[in-house]
């Protein structure tokens, strides 16, 4: 399970789209792994989110294509944040499935996520990942996931994991 939006320091409840975007990226900023790959939201609403990752050299595999793990990471982030938009900030990924459709080439990856269905405890979300080359987007992977509401407390020492001194 990946823990995404669980129990973050909560800034004032975001009201405008700009505040929502800033809030989502503030959560990304304290997720060291998401920060490591350079993930950033460029838009996020109740139903759709767009996440960007510049395709650096160190994120590619031995053929020079985007590593599958990176594409899956983007899917996980996109799926989970959409789940959080439907269920509230304290959520976890229960499972997802991904199909890789083409090699990821170009200079940037874009993940576009949406909510398909949500109930009180779980949301089903979808994410398409595109490679951007010369300004043109090509679909490289698609994922379908289940996001669940979490009752788990954040692990002890999470502050330390985030690079803060408790």
């Amino acid at each position, binding site marked *: 399970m990946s823990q995404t939006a669980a129990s973050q320091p909560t800034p004032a409840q975001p009201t405008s789209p700009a505040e929502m975007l800033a809030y989502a990226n503030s959560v990304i900023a304290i997720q060291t792994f998401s920060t490591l790959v350079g993930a950033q939201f460029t838009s996020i609403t109740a139903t759709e989110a767009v996440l960007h990752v510049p395709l650096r050299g160190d994120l590619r595999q031995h053929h020079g294509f985007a590593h599958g793990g990176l594409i899956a990471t983007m899917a996980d982030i996109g799926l989970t944040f959409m789940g959080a938009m439907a269920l509230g900030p304290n959520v976890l990924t229960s499972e997802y*499935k991904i*199909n890789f*459709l083409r090699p990821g080439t170009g200079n940037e990856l874009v993940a576009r996520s949406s909510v*398909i269905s949500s109930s009180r405890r779980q949301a*089903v979300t*979808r994410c398409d990942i595109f490679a951007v080359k010369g300004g043109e987007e090509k*679909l490289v992977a*698609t*994922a*379908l996931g289940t996001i669940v509401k979490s009752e788990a407390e954040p692990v002890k020492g999470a502050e330390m994991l985030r690079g803060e001194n408790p």
Partner: protein
Amino acid sequence: MTFDLAAARARLEASRSRSAFTSFMGTRLRQVGEGVVEIEIDLKAPLTQQHGTAHGAVIGYLADTASAWAAATVAGDVVTAEYKLNLLAPAHGPLLWARAEVIRSGRSQLIVRADVFSGGSVPGQDQLVGACLATIVPFRRNSRSTQEKPSE
């Protein structure tokens, strides 16, 4: 190569009548396009589970069949390699239908997305009950198995 809609529909109708299970389920073809198919069935009592709504396997059947048929419109004879299905809500019927769309067609595999709906009682009030993502592969008859004669 241009897409021959009439030929694709004829192929699907022929395969539908040859497939015993498809006939058993009472499957009807409601729409065919290039890489797109819609099918429907009536939710009969033997297809329900203990709560009176459609058995999950029936939703799986619709997602699987619609996905394979959508792939068949562009790739000919195919089989399903795998699919993943999210069951989203109880399906009350009386009509169940699925829409599948090929999102990537390659030489060795096709990736198909399918949505399953329940409805038929109030027009425009159909509910999404299943979301599926499938891998369909072209069926190439194994040359060895077709040449092999029974040993006895």
